[in-house]
């Protein structure tokens, strides 16, 4: 069998990351502008004046945890502390559920590691009447809004109290009352629903909006470009977001087009503003969301935001990232860790300290532990589930004769 190298004498370009397992991780090619170096335009600025933004990187927190420049959110220290606590809770939740999967309590789980700001911050920055069309790494949205942790775990365990009645793979939550749209394992297929939802709000003359998020790998799907087209054409009050965590399972972002341009720059072709932001910088993320939300609520249409981040762990419990990228790559990721960076900022503001931080970690662990215990008392995957009738409900509003006959056939 010819080696990969022997086949390299060809005119066909196949993107390949510069580092693979065994290599020294290298982020030297990454251009990271100084925090505060990108000016913040007025929210109602003409799109034509915003066209350099997609090629920059909006950063607020510098390496010392100081907030620089004018992308400063209108968020109190108290609400930033809530964001931090939510991220810590998210981390404790991830650790517990990952372990639960390894212990055989459920079939599958996905962690948020490194992307915690991207669930918690939009949840706090946007309004209760806004709707999030999330990715599966946004449980922070629910945690920030006080969704019961036990119900998340009941869903993950598919036990008798699972709000989704055992119909969904773990973590594909749905929580309308918390502004969290039904997740699906088909990535990208809900981004257009976000646009439709936003159009419905505009149609009704309301000023609430939708936020729809997909990963950078999924930007290659037609759904994404259709959503951008509709969002642009109808000036939908929607914030379209690409979480660029640089890895789609084992595929690096170059295969989705990142070698040639930024994901935010795709906005240019649709005539909407594109913002590229340090996704591990809570203040910057909060601030760009405020900017885009203000614009959407004022009837000025959609914004595309690229959250530039790094998936610090595997894609899911079924993945081993050391098979395709250097083992220590996550640790040298130059934009750091969202929790540490926010902690540093709040500490600098004298709003937080190590003692409070450790207490918050302990409280988060305790909260999760209690909820997990209570959920486990109800049951885990395989020991407890919803009544079998639930398998047949909600197919239609009213069951037709097929469903009724099959219910009988099962012997219910």
């Amino acid at each position: 069998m010819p080696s990969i190298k022997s086949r390299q004498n060809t005119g066909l370009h196949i993107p390949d990351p510069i580092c693979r397992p065994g290599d020294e991780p290298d982020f030297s090619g990454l251009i990271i502008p100084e925090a505060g170096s990108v000016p913040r335009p007025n929210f109602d600025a003409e799109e034509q004046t915003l066209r350099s933004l997609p090629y920059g990187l909006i950063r607020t927190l510098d390496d010392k945890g100081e907030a620089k420049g004018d992308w400063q959110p209108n968020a109190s220290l108290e609400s930033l502390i809530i964001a931090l606590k939510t991220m810590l809770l998210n981390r404790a939740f991830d650790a517990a559920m990952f372990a639960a999967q390894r212990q055989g309590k459920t079939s599958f789980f996905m962690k948020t590691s490194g992307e915690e700001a991207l669930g918690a911050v939009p949840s706090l920055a946007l309004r209760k009447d806004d709707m999030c069309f999330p990715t599966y790494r946004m449980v922070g949205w629910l945690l920030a809004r006080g969704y019961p942790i036990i119900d998340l775990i009941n869903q993950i365990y598919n036990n008798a109290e699972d709000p989704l009645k055992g119909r969904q793979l773990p973590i594909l939550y749905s929580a309308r009352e918390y502004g969290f749209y039904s997740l699906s394992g088909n990535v990208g297929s809900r981004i257009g629903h976000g646009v439709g939802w936003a159009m419905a709000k505009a149609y009704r003359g309301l000023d609430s909006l939708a936020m729809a998020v997909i990963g950078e790998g999924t930007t290659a799907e037609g759904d994404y470009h259709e959503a951008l087209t509709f969002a642009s054409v109808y000036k939908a009050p929607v914030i379209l977001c690409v979480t660029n965590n640089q890895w789609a399972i084992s595929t690096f972002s170059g295969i989705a087009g990142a070698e040639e341009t930024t994901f935010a720059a795709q906005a240019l072709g649709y005539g909407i503003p594109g913002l590229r932001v340090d996704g591990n910088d809570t203040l910057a993320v909060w601030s760009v969301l405020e900017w885009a939300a203000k614009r959407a609520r004022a009837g000025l249409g959609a914004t595309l935001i690229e959250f530039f981040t790094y998936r610090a762990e595997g894609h899911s419990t079924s993945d081993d990232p050391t098979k395709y990228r250097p083992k220590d790559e996550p640790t040298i990721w130059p934009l750091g860790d969202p929790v540490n960076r926010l902690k540093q900022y709040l500490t600098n503001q004298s709003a937080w300290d190590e003692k409070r931080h450790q207490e918050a970690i302990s409280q988060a662990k305790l909260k999760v532990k209690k909820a997990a215990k209570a959920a486990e008392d109800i049951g885990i995957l395989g020991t407890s589930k919803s009544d079998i009738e639930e398998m047949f409900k909600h197919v239609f509003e009213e069951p037709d004769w097929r469903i009724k006959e099959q219910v009988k056939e099962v012997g219910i």
Partner: protein
Amino acid sequence: MPSMNMIQALNSALDVMLERDPDVLIFGEDVGYFGGVFRVTDKLQQKHGLHRCFDAPISEGGIVSTAIGMGAEGLRPVVEIQFADYILPAYDQLVSEAARLRYRSGGDFTAPITVRSPYGGGIYGGQTHSQSPEAIFAHITGLKTVIPATPYDAKGLLISAIECNDPVIFLEPKRIYNGPFDGHHDRPLKSWKEHPQADVPEGHYIVPLGKSRVVREGSDVTVLAYGTMVYVAEAAISETSIDAELIDLRSIVPLDIDAIVTSVKKTGRCVIVHEASKFGGFGGELTALIEERCFYYLEAPTQRVAGWDTPYPHAFEWDYFPKPSRIVDALEKAIRV
């Protein structure tokens, strides 16, 4: 009562629903100012406003995806896919999203959308304007699939579809938009004028989804059809001395299984007619249901008359399209045993 062709009846249904329910809105390719390539949305934008009936980008996936989002929010979008042949880019949205949203979210979100689409052959439309894809929707649980055969039904069924809280695929047999077509392509065109089923009330009324219509009572053999094939089957029956019972299914999901079983038990024989190609077509499902439920009443194997298992051919339109003589042959086979 005014006489309407099917286009006018569908237009009237949309007009009535736009008037009655501010949550109803229409969009699709060319449906706005122009009123649609088949004129089904004619003057609705002028009458109800730009935001109630508007043009969409050429993006079937985008149209359906947007509609699902609107439906989840609480609106009742009615979208047009210009030809059913173009619906496949939206298939993922219909299958993976619209059909399952209620189920997977535990009733948290629903997709009360209607996807209208002209379908079927007989208009020299070639492969891309003639297909009958109903079976690929019938197979997807969570979707309803409706196919009217008369102006009266078209309006009443469309109103039912729009008022339905489940996603509905509404396939309009375009060969009979302007008049019933009996499959004799070499004979003069007929119009809906004077046809009893073209008496269409102006206001709101419904034809419930899942209730079939007996077109002709009979005792020798049951004929199941929908869409244009109702008229082709009717013509075929009239060309024989066989006393066939012709049932227009109106919707294939929900399916009026009771009416089918009652009729086949009475006649002991069945002929199924559809335009779509035979293998894996909806006729196969009907055949299986009849065997499961009526086996001891059957006097003969169920016959299927369908499009051939080829892509829809342009120059061979009338060789492909199930014609009355093929149905006559099937009827004779069914009663011969």
